[in-house]
């Protein structure tokens, strides 16, 4: 036990908690606002985050990040494997013989990759972590519009994905990063000013995303937890375990090289990708499941409540693991 903790220094644990605890504080504020407001205006927050704040955050992160198709592919493939793995595990664990596929399945499979993950990734892993989190969320969104919609209505809705502001701003961000022509000084400065406005909005999105996640939780009651223990535990325990398998697979196949070499930053970049995959998979259930599944049943509410409450403990454990076994020198 002592050896387990000795691998992460007190300083690293402190730095980790300095990033994580403020996010929890803001989440509690979101829950409080939801309670105060009876969570009547979730649409307001959803529209703000979906149409303005999250797209601006995506653009701001992506256009500063070096475009690497291999990185995008590896994150996308990892997300696919995690989602499929979670679907299979959840299906066999939660299958309701009477109703068939339960809405609780969605709550166990889908994580809050668009509301909690980006702020956490930014605070803990900086701009690189944020960019990877945006790619992670992009692929989760694709899964949401395809498999997710199919699970609920029997039909995928891939077309709607292409209409999302998030998708457009990511493409714009990649294009802006790789713009081939040189601009004159003044035009370049003007473009940087536009970018500054987007960046200010992007930074403003961090607290708003967390608040919008906490807002609907204000309606949940403690008694709701009864129906959601298994689903909630699956989300926050099985999720990171599945992600760990994916990370091991990537290391074995050489997709995330363990060669330190001269360029230590290249090595760290692979480790950050691994860390982000583990963190992303450890996120609690997405509150959007309530929207997707229509009026959320007791099981869905329970799963969300249990996963959020449990994540306060499991996320630091996952982060500790990342510090000790992913980032350790």
């Amino acid at each position, binding site marked *: 036990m002592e050896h387990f903790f000795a691998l992460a220094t007190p300083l690293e644990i402190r730095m980790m908690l300095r990033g994580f605890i403020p996010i929890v504080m803001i989440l509690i504020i979101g829950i409080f606002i939801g309670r105060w407001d009876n969570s009547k205006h979730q649409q307001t927050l959803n529209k703000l985050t979906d149409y303005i704040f999250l797209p601006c955050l995506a653009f701001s992160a992506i256009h500063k990040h070096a475009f690497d198709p291999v990185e995008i592919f590896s994150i996308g493939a990892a997300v696919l494997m995690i989602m499929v793995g979670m679907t299979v595990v959840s299906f066999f664990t939660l299958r309701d013989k009477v109703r068939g596929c339960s809405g609780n399945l969605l709550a166990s499979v889908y994580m809050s990759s668009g509301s909690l993950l980006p702020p956490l990734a930014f605070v803990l892993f900086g701009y690189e972590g944020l960019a990877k989190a945006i790619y992670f969320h992009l692929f989760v969104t694709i899964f949401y519009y395809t498999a997710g919609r199919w699970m609920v209505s029997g039909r995928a809705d891939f077309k709607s994905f292409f209409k999302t502001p998030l998708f457009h701003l990511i493409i714009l961000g990649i294009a802006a990063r790789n713009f081939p022509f040189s601009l004159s000084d003044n035009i370049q400065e003007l473009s940087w000013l536009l970018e500054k406005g987007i960046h200010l909005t992007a930074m*403003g999105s961090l607290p708003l995303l967390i608040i919008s996640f906490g807002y609907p939780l204000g309606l949940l009651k403690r008694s709701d937890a009864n129906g959601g223990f298994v689903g909630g535990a699956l989300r926050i325990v099985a999720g990171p375990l599945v992600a760990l398998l994916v990370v091991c697979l990537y290391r074995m196949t050489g997709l995330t090289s363990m060669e330190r070499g001269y360029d230590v930053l290249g090595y760290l970049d692979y480790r950050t990708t691994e860390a982000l995959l583990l963190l992303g998979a450890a996120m609690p259930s997405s509150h959007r499941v309530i929207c997707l599944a229509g009026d959320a049943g007791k099981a869905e509410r329970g799963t969300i409540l249990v996963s959020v409450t449990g994540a306060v403990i499991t996320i630091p454990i996952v982060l500790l693991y990342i510090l000790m076994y992913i980032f350790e020198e």
Partner: protein
Amino acid sequence: MNLISNEMLIIIRAVLPSFVIAFFGLLLGKLDSKREINQKTISNIVYYFFTPCLVFSSLHKRSFDFQEFAVIGGAALILIAMMTPVAFFVKRRAAVHENGYVLPIIFMNTGNISLPIALLMFGNDGLAKAIMFHMMNIMVLYSYGVYLVSGKTDLMQFAKIPALWATVLGVTAATSNPALPGIISDVYDIVNKGIDVLAQGAIPVLIINLGYSMSDTKLSTLKAGLTGASLRLLGGPLMAFGLVYGYRMIGWMPVIPGMDPLVALGYRTSEAIIILNAAMPGPIMAYLLNVKFDNCPAKAASMLAVGTLGGIVTIPLTLTLVTRYIL
């Protein structure tokens, strides 16, 4: 050859990012034809959480200079006092009976528009000074302003202003700087980090909210607010220039050749912030108070709309004059 002069670039640098964000709000408003977005929810989040965190975050990390606070806060008070008789004169000439008419003329929108421009043009130091001005403006709005529209002073309401307590706490933290023992210091750092993250939400959400409000404006309603808005946009900076030169003459913001350039920069930034804030249109809170006490809200809304639209022209002009004659 540069298409845009350096001077113009300085102004554009300060206002363009804010316009980009306001444009997002405007776009959202146009897309939200059914008006599903509840502005009160957004305003509450900003009012109770984001703005107080911004105030605290800005003040507690900066060494507190009481003289600077007195000069800037005092300037806000003086400008409000100077504009009051002029506003009442215009109200009498317009044959308006309700006192709510004068609120958007006397008080300034020192939050939505002023704070981001102050940050972008004058940096974090400018932002801190703008916050001091903003605090004095809203304290007088919530006391004297409420009295004007309701006929009574509600000190309990005044005492409930979250940003006020944030100011007190921020100044206390900045001036006391106690040596906290180990774990308490860690907890304090963590809480501060949370506050810093929340503070980042204030400026963009304020501007987006403003842009969203503007998306509903109809040109036909603007005529009623022309006089009041013009007085606010033109009279305000004129009074502020006079006040600044008055400050210089009495030595509160001296111009001494050979003065330490950094000290001089501090004075000039304070002057610029005073003039910038005085050039702001009326505050949205003035409209909300008029609605609350049913005190000519329509005219107030019209003045705010004209003022905000007119500010697109007058604010950059004011900043040009500030760059040329003050900085």
